[in-house]
């Protein structure tokens, strides 16, 4: 187990190398320079000053040297400073990361718990009204543009009914609130982004959960469990569920990049103070060091998530042993 873990953690390094090289390539193959944002609008900018600016940011060196400089510093956890306000990239990401982690963690938990429950109910009552309704939900959930649902919910629940706040993470009067009111305030702000973000994943996982359970429910050991007179609840949640869990964990692990990618859309729509919106702003202002940092952190989170998913297999299925 320890050796397996060590090997998996070491494998993250070449993956990060590949991913950061990809990000770097995209940044540097694209036409134009990040300094253009500053220099093009400034008529007093001389050629000399432009050159100085390039040297200052290290953009005058060949790209492979720039990349290795960057990678070397990254290994020491130094992502450089943002072009925009010259603050350390790591601290800028650090400020925003907890909010994004919270959002992703809550969405993932919501997806996991709800889809298991709905999937199980649909599987045990196959072809019932509930099952058909679930199938409809799955199809619509797959096909619906989530940003559109976000928009509709913002109008309906936020503007028309005034039930939920539609942007940010805190109300304007947050500092005046007491402890429990503060928690409630944040919770209220989270409801819309979390549910919208969970929608597609929920549809996907519900479907897998249903079909996975349907398959398991036909197995002989389920018949045995029923034959020895176990209550149906116990058969479902103890015997069938654990065996149906394995493919579900795989799908959950595969969903991570999409979920993190989704942060870039939803945080922008909901003006949510997380890493996704920071990334969107960094893209618009061509903040290379910040983009490299965010790309790396996002990829690292995904790799970590996949590792956790792999370790969870052993939990779900004692037959799996890691060496």
């Amino acid at each position: 187990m320890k050796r397996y873990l060590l090997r998996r953690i070491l494998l993250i390094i070449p993956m990060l190398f590949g991913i950061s090289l990809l990000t770097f390539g995209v940044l540097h193959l694209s036409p134009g320079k990040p300094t253009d944002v500053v220099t093009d609008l400034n008529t007093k900018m001389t050629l000399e000053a432009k050159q100085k600016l390039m040297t200052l940011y290290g953009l005058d060196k060949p790209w492979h040297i720039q990349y290795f400089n960057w990678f070397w510093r990254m290994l020491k956890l130094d992502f450089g400073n943002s072009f925009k306000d010259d603050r350390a990239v790591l601290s800028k990401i650090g400020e925003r990361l907890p909010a994004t982690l919270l959002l992703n963690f809550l969405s993932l938990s919501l997806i996991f718990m709800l889809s298991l429950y709905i999937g199980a109910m649909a599987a045990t009552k196959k072809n019932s009204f509930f099952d058909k309704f679930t199938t409809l939900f799955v199809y619509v959930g797959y096909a619906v543009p989530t940003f559109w649902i976000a928009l509709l919910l913002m109008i309906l629940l936020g503007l028309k009914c005034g039930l939920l706040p539609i942007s940010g993470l805190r109300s304007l009067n947050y500092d005046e609130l007491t402890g429990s009111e503060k928690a409630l305030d944040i919770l209220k702000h989270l409801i819309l982004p979390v549910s919208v973000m969970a929608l597609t994943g929920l549809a996907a996982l519900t479907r897998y959960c249903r079909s996975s359970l349907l398959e398991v429910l036909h197995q002989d050991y389920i018949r045995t469990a029923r034959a020895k007179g176990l209550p149906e609840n116990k058969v479902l949640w103890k015997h069938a569920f654990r065996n149906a869990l394995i493919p579900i964990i795989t799908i959950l692990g595969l969903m991570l990049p999409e979920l993190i990618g989704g942060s870039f859309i939803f945080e922008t729509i909901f003006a949510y103070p997380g890493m996704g919106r920071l990334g969107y702003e960094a893209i618009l202002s061509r903040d290379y060091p910040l983009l490299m940092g965010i790309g790396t952190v996002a990829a690292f989170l995904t790799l970590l998530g996949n590792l956790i998913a792999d370790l969870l297999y052993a939990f779900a299925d004692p037959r799996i042993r890691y060496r």
Partner: protein
Amino acid sequence: MLRLYIKRLLKNKSGVFGLGLIVFLLLMALAAPLLVPQDPLQQNLKERLQAPSLLHWLGTDDLGRDLLSRLIYGSRVSLLVGFIAVTLSTLLGSFVGLCAGYLGKWVDSACMRAVDILLCFPTFFLILMVIAFLEPNIANVMIIIGLTSWTGLARLVRAETLSIKERDFVLAARALGLSTKRILFFHILPSVSAPIIVSATLGVGNAILIESSLSFLGLGVQPPMPSWGNILTSGKDYIHFAWWLSLFPGLALLFTVLAFNLLGEGLRDVLDPRDQS
């Protein structure tokens, strides 16, 4: 064989529904200039933000342009992006999967590592970045969606190829001394075509969704060219009093993507009866 497949598909109700909807959309997109009640770009500030009426069935936008006409022209963008992006990703994914599966050794490891890297990268971030740095226009959107969505298919085709290359007919082809190219494209490719067709059909819906998200964020198809995504963006600013601008483009997207997904599922049942999940 083909007749059998068509017969089976026609028995699949949701598949037929999807196919019908797609045919309808295609005809609408092709015949757009004949169908639209008004030029989708023609502004008429006197009639701005009109609610749906007999004159403007789906209402008008902030510049007085007829929403129905804009939606009909928007279907051209969605379908074009969907088809071209998927053609690109299908070609790329099948090719990489075939080569990795059949050639094995270092080709396999190299391809699969590349796939692993792309799979654990939040694709949408990559797409946003590339589009923002190049110029946001329809051609770039199609290319970048195509270039980033082939990885799943590559894995699928590789797995299928791995099992098929051990079959007798492939061994026979090799024993006859056929070239690798010929074996790959004339013997193995037809045998793995079922999952490719299914994945391509499902991919169209996905590509359409990505395009609309990009256009919604202002990094996709640029106005005045109407795309369902960028109509929603302009609708967002008038959300308080012009609900029709936010409702109809979303519904159009929903039904289009649904149609491709239903057809894809139907094709899966027809072409690959083993997997009935």
